[in-house]
């Protein structure tokens, strides 16, 4: 088990953000792997739930999307969207979410809507889905990004989901009284946000990845002075991810 794939590192690193007792909003793909692995490895009392209304299902097989029948079996509750989003923002819960994006800016704001002009875009993406909602309402969220220069931008083509908005206390001034973006997990590294300015900085680089490579692939200037190497996936983490979470490698893909 010496080697591991990029997406395995990403899922495991992201999963480490889940704390026991967290109520975790789960999306498709890597987010599903991270949440399922995180619960199994670090946070047995975490509750996974889906925007479609499935609360704490047994997840014996990995769902391919959030409306997959596999989020309806063995659940505590099968409900609907209204119920789910009211959980996301519930004051008595620590809710965290995983989101993906096509573009991200230095304050962790996300674009999942389009590239180019909104009305006649060069490329159209699916849209917000629940991303705008959980970015606004959850206690915090973590972003998955493919680490490419064009995805880390000074100005988003469309601001779908609010992270730290314009930095400093601008998120709170918007009227969003809690939450914000906790970290960005890419295929090269982990970015976090300065506590005061809320600007993105390099927090961790994966084993074998140089800081130069990260800087080269990031379209915005970032502080790298605080970077440390990420603890590599342990054998146990890899075993659970591969054998328990996605044994069919439906999301992990070929070895």
């Amino acid at each position, binding site marked *: 088990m010496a080697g591991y794939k990029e997406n395995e590192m990403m899922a495991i690193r992201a999963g480490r953000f889940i704390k026991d007792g967290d109520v975790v909003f789960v999306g498709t793909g890597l987010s599903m792997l991270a949440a399922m692995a995180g619960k199994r490895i670090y946070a047995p009392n975490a509750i996974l739930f889906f925007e479609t209304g499935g609360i704490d299902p047994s997840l014996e*097989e990995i769902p391919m999307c959030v409306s997959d*029948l596999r989020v309806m079996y063995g659940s505590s509750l099968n409900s609907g969207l*209204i119920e789910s*989003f009211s959980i996301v923002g519930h004051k008595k819960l620590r809710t965290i979410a995983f989101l993906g994006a096509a573009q991200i800016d230095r304050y962790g704001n996300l674009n999942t809507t*389009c590239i180019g002009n909104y009305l006649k875009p060069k490329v159209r993406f699916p849209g917000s889905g629940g991303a705008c909602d959980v970015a606004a309402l959850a206690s915090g969220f973590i972003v998955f990004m493919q680490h490419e220069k064009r995805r880390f931008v000074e100005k988003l083509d469309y601001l779908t989901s609010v992270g730290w908005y314009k930095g400093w206390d601008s998120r709170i001034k918007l009227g969003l009284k809690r939450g914000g973006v906790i970290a960005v997990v890419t295929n090269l590294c982990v970015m976090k946000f300065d506590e005061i300015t809320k600007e993105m900085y390099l927090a961790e680089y994966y084993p074998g990845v140089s800081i130069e490579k990260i800087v080269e692939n990031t379209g915005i200037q970032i502080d790298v002075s605080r970077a440390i190497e990420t603890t590599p996936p342990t054998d146990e983490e890899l075993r659970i991810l591969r054998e328990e979470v996605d044994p069919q490698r*439906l999301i992990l893909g070929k070895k």
Partner: protein
Amino acid sequence: MSEHNGLTQKFTTLEEAVKKFIKSGSIVAIGGFTVSRNPMALAYEIIRQGIRDLHIVCHSHGQALDVLIGAGCVKRLEIAYGGNGRYAPTCVRFRKAIERGEIEFEDYSNYQMSLRFLAGALGIPFIPTKSGLGSDILTKEGFSPQTRREKNVARKKLVVLQNPFTEEEDPIVLLPALTPDVTILHAQYVGEDGTVRIKGLTFADIEQAKAANAVIVTCEEIVSRAFIRSDPDQNCLPPFFVDAIVKVPYGAHPTACFGFYDYDPKHLNYYRKVAEDDTEFKKYLDEWVYGLSSHTQYLEKVGIQTLIKLKASPVTGYAIGLERK
């Protein structure tokens, strides 16, 4: 109206239901979510009847929406998400239609759209939320001023208001209610009395149905009045919210129906591929929609072997071990 035997007279055919309730220009809400419980048989029938200029309102939609857009039935769209999960991260015909400027569209989020349906269901003109503050959902509009003046279209995309219950600064987004002309949905069970029961997740189907002026329901099974009323806690809609009911087994294929059948990964993958090419997509429609005159013919084309593979386990409600790549 002679329903005093407790049995409804609303049972009809796909053809009649669509003909009676869906017109070119109608505002239509679609039940289900991405690849689950899409009213596919109804979508195919809408295409076959050549209905045009639909104004679709939805949260996260996938297969039914995409095939309607691809067949040219859709003029206008209010949407939060157009995708099929791993089977199409962005729905292809949806993407192309927007990139080509073929439809008028406006983006909201899933919670926003669900709340808008809830407001419609409650009969209130708007509903507040914190979601959207700071997002381009607030700043970028897609509808023209003319569109905003059309019947049953919200006059404004949304409104930001200071919370009148506090002196602190506290901006709130007000979302306009949605009241579709028609909601189409697929359920597992309908009673002979017209009561609807959905198993598994309900998504926003119930809100969508209550918000609408007319509701068409397709279902896997018609069950007796006594059965559906032996546990009323499990039911979702009383008969008076439903206007037409059609029994259509496998009416959601290639999407899933909890407890009955799983989504069809091969079909969805095939669809995504052909959707990329205009000519191939036209052939797909000819083959799977125009070329078939009934849902039974459609199922024969799907084939019994596939249907058996997709069959849900009575324990888990999905097809255990289904090849899903």
